[in-house]
């Protein structure tokens, strides 16, 4: 028996490290497989296996004495996790991702705080690098936590999605960052400085809130992917606190993947990350009013569902362009029904997806997948744009800025240079929209006044329901 214990004491640490290595490999392979729709599900399972392995290996660590409390945490977390994963509606996925990002940040910051507390309360020394790691982990973790909670509240409709701005906002953020840095230095000099430690916690929590409140709904894809990246970086920083390689590796992987997504989102809006974070759309009334005054002599052509159904039913090819309006109206199922009805009449139907349509990266894809639309029918912007010229009808459902032709030619427009879906090149364009309001950018959409454009007013769901009925009667 003693021999067995001895063997375990000798070999367990190496065993744990090897398990961590395997877990890290699982994460890398899993993420790699997430790059293709065919292997993605398998990749996710491989990632989960890696996680299970890492957790099991940690549980045999000889430094762990009390398992009951660990068990309580594991069970509560797992039960809640299973419940929300089953209960969440696909339309609520942006909030869900926001919430999960936040919990990841919170967990990281709690680990750093716990590590700090038990070292300090035992009067053990904390090295400078350890304190710096703890301070960094708390900064990133807390910003991820409160930032994600604000994003969650905005997406859930608990608070208004409109940007909240006030004078000297940037200056306040910079002052807070400087105070955080001073607080961190104080804790480095005297690790037992509890007031300083509490201070850097409070300031970083506040920074998270201030970082997300000025960002409006349409910029959410950027924020969500950036917070995703931060949740990884927070885990990586915590890895430096507890000096654990698998934490560092996983944190870096997630941080990198989130950054790539953030970059894709910024590129799809032709904006830089700082401009999204620090200078939102529609704050300078200039562009909006200017466009408004120019619309006086423009006319809008309306179309009724019957006429529109005829146009669609006798078209050869139809491209559906969904936007946030489809998500709000939860119209994905009727959209798919319309597409099915049209296909039965021999119309070729495809979907054109703009990378930033909706409130998170891939939002439209998830909704349409839920409605059983095969992903092979969903076309990326670069693939579909050259094909609009040969399209009979482009049907825009609740999308606005991402189809505004002003982005191509109007140098004055705030969205100038943003890559758009070129629906105006189709032979006809039908826009389903509730009214004539401007898009998220606050810019009026000149597409609505073009000769080939027809407006079908109404909520996406009602309008398409009526279209389905009309098309069936053709």
């Amino acid at each position, binding site marked *: 028996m003693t021999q067995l214990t001895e063997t375990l004491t000798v070999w367990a640490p190496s065993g744990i490290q090897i398990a961590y290595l395997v877990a890290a490999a699982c994460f890398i392979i899993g*993420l*790699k497989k997430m*790059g*293709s*729709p065919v292997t*993605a599900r398998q990749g*996710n399972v491989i*990632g*989960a296996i890696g*996680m299970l392995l*890492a*957790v099991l290996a940690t549980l045999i*660590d000889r*430094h*762990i*004495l*009390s398992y009951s*409390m*660990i068990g309580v*945490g594991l069970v*509560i*977390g797992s039960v*809640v*996790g*299973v419940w*929300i994963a089953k209960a969440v509606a*696909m339309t609520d*996925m942006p909030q*869900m*991702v926001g919430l*999960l990002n936040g*919990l*990841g940040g919170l*967990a990281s910051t*709690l*680990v750093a705080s*716990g*590590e700090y507390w*038990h070292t300090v309360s*035992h009067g*053990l020394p904390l*090295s400078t*690098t350890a304190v710096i790691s703890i301070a960094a982990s708390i900064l990133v973790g807390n910003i991820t936590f409160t930032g994600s909670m604000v994003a969650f509240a905005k997406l859930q409709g608990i608070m208004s999605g409109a940007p909240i701005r006030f004078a000297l906002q940037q200056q306040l953020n910079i002052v807070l960052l400087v105070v955080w840095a001073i607080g961190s230095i104080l804790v480095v000099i005297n690790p037992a400085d509890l007031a300083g430690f509490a201070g850097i916690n409070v300031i970083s929590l506040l920074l998270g809130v201030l970082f997300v409140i000025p960002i409006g709904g349409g910029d959410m894809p950027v924020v969500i992917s950036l917070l995703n990246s931060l*949740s*990884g970086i*927070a885990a990586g920083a*915590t890895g430096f606190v*507890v000096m654990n390689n698998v*934490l*560092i590796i*996983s*944190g*870096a992987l997630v941080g*990198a*993947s989130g950054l*790539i*997504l953030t970059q894709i989102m910024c590129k799809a809006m032709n904006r830089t990350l700082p401009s999204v974070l620090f200078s939102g759309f529609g704050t300078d009334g200039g562009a909006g009013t200017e466009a408004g005054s120019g619309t006086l002599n423009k006319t809008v052509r309306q179309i009724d569902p019957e006429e529109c159904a005829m146009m669609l039913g006798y078209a050869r090819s139809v491209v559906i362009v969904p936007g946030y309006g489809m998500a709000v109206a939860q119209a994905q199922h009727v959209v798919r029904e319309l597409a099915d009805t049209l296909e039965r009449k021999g119309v070729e139907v495809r979907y054109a997806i703009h990378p930033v349509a909706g409130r998170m990266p*891939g939002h439209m*894809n998830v909704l349409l997948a839920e409605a059983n639309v*095969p992903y092979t029918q969903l076309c990326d912007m670069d693939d579909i744009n050259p094909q609009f010229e040969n399209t009979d009808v482009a049907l825009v459902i609740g999308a606005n800025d991402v189809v505004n032709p002003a982005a191509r030619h109007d140098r004055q427009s705030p969205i100038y240079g943003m890559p758009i879906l070129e629906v105006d090149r189709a032979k006809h364009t039908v826009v389903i929209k509730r009214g004539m309001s401007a898009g998220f950018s606050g810019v009026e959409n000149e597409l609505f006044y073009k000769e080939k454009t027809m407006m079908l007013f109404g909520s996406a769901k009602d309008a398409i329901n009526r279209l389905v009925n009309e098309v069936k009667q053709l």
Partner: protein
Amino acid sequence: MTESLITAILIFTLASFTGFEIINKIPPTLHTPLMSGSNAISGICVIGAVLVAGGETGTTLSTVLGVVAIACAMVNVVGGFLVTDRMLQMFKKKES
């Protein structure tokens, strides 16, 4: 300490490059599952939480912080992997 710190920085840097390489060219269809799946992986800090909560030198407060961290991270891990799987099983190539 310095040596292990440099090793840690090395690992972090190399893992970041690995991340950029393997996730490059992800199709837009998979943007959301990639986010929720990678988010589940960032729940790896459950390991740090377990070490803090069950550590032999733990105090009451550090144990409580550790247990709350375990719970949060597990919601992240379990919720993240499950919801990603739920999404991915909807992604079909053609109708059956």
